[in-house]
């Protein structure tokens, strides 16, 4: 547990919010740089090469998705954690599919956020309960057999179970206990779901996200 603090670049167009997050993360992570625009974010990330970029979804000039796109040209392995006020499925799905390894809402506590940053640094995925709910919803409906890529378009029973528990507000270690599996296995399941979310061509995914906007 004596690993060095994860290094972070904090990206948000609201200075007030950046200051708040920075204060909350004080001593938990090492904030190397802040950025308020897409360009600043891209250059700061390329300069600092942090473990994790904490990324706002809504920014002028293309938002978090654009930052990911610009950075990925040079640093395809850079890890991003999306942090947003928006709960809209559209936004969540868009930034995850662009390559973010997790999505948390801004109401998250400092400690939970630091924990999420650590997990993203370690290569795991971070799903908020709401994101888990979105994924379950998006993968719920039946689709014709012929169109299914079994590898990518379906969740396994175990993956569903894990997501369900996340949606119910369980933490990873509680899930491991509940399902009698190891913490690492829980993480492996979540990472598998993330991969499916990013790679699946399941045609409903985008359409679903847009339709969902009408309700949430």
């Amino acid at each position, binding site marked *: 547990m004596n690993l060095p603090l994860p290094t972070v670049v904090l990206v948000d167009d609201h200075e007030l919010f950046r200051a708040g997050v920075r204060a909350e993360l004080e001593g938990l992570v090492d904030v190397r740089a802040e950025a308020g625009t897409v360009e600043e974010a891209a250059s700061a990330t390329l300069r600092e090469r942090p473990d994790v970029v904490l990324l706002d979804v809504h920014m002028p000039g293309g938002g978090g998705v654009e930052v990911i796109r610009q950075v990925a040209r040079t640093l395809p392995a850079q890890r991003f954690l999306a942090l947003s006020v928006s*709960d*809209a499925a559209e936004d969540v799905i868009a930034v995850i599919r662009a390559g973010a390894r997790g999505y948390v809402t801004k109401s998250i*506590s400092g400690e939970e956020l630091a924990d999420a940053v650590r997990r993203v640094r370690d290569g795991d995925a971070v799903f908020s*309960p*709401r994101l*888990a*709910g979105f994924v*379950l*919803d998006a993968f*719920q409906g039946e689709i014709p057999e012929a169109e299914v890529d079994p590898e990518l378009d379906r969740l396994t029973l175990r993956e569903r179970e894990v997501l*369900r528990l996340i*949606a*119910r*507000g*369980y933490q990873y270690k509680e899930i491991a206990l509940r399902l009698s599996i190891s913490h690492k296995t829980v993480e492996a399941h979540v990472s598998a779901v993330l991969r499916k979310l990013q790679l699946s061509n399941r045609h409903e995914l985008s359409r679903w996200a847009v339709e969902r*906007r*009408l*309700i*949430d």
Partner: protein
Amino acid sequence: MSKGSLTRDTRHGWVAGVLAGIGDRIGVDPLWLRIAFVIAAIATGGLLLLAYLIAWAALPAAEGGPAPMARFGRSSRGRGDWRVAVGAGLLTLSALLAFRQLGIWWSDPIAWPLVLAAFGVALLWVRSPRRSAPPADRPAAELSPPSPSAEAPRKRVGSRLAEQYSGAFGVLLVVGAALLFLSSNHVLGGVRDAALTGVVVLVALALILAPFLWRLGRNLAAERAERIRSEERAQLAAHLHDSVLQTLTLMQKRADDPREVASLARRQERELREWLAGGGASENGGRSLDSELRAAAVAIEDDHRVAIEAIVVGDCELDARAEAVLGAAREALLNAARHSGDTGPIRVYAEIDDAGIAVFVRDRGAGFDPGAVPEDRRGVRESIVGRMQRAGGRAEIRSSPGGGTEVSIEIARESAAAKGGP
């Protein structure tokens, strides 16, 4: 209003495509128009052929490119409208002469009035789109047939006067033509003369006013769009004032009560999200389990100043079973709101599919030892577990001191139970 301008359909036309174009616009088979045209042309002694010629000159071809008349005007910018007008006059004159040569003729005195009227009308038409058509209104601008409208933006205020002058001149010409026509027919005299006077004056007036009315209609439409925009702005301002500003004021007053402030902020946030998402009303209008669960969460959130995060996957109608689930979930939420204390949000997760409904209500509060349930909580417990048992489902309460509480509520859907049952 202008669903598409009137054009000549040269591909389907027999001569210049005028009738095919008109037929296409008003939705009538051009064949009928042609038959009607031939009959009418014979009946009017060939006068309609003249109208055809004018229409050909004035209408642009459907395939693009300006009307022949407009093309004629374009060759010299600036004074183009005069040339177009002169052209229209000459065209009319030549048509009349042709008719006369062919023997289709009534009397000489109508020739000059007709030529003058064509000249005046052409002036009015050419001028009309220039003055008011805003750049965004392009389709409408194209509606005016003889206008070299592509040049409109290049025209500057300096030409206003000339336009007004040519406009007034056009009016004078048409009126003059009408008067000339009347004086040449004066011999007829009597009642017929009076009736004819009325008709001719009306026709002249219609010719003069048509472009003006056209323009007026367009301006009205533009004004209405502007009014709708400003109304929307006012509505937005009113909404923000009633909601966000009020809440912010309230929060400043209650700054010493963090719980109240948090509750106010949360309520405002929810309202704003709903409003941004487009009204927030459930989109199918009816009562569904999804919307009712969310509504219950919102009500308890407000009453007890707690945070509740509801995640609902799937949806169903509010039948008896869903109603039981809803009631039990509400009890569980109330219970959590009363007892969990200030320990992060209460989470509701509901999953609804064809097979069944499952709802989980979880808090991270103090929890309790299920073996030593105090009396006052036994009743609550009964209202959750008992209710679900009576409805044919089940409920379970897991709790441990310090580990929070989770109530799980499950029931099979009626359709699924009917299929699987005996």
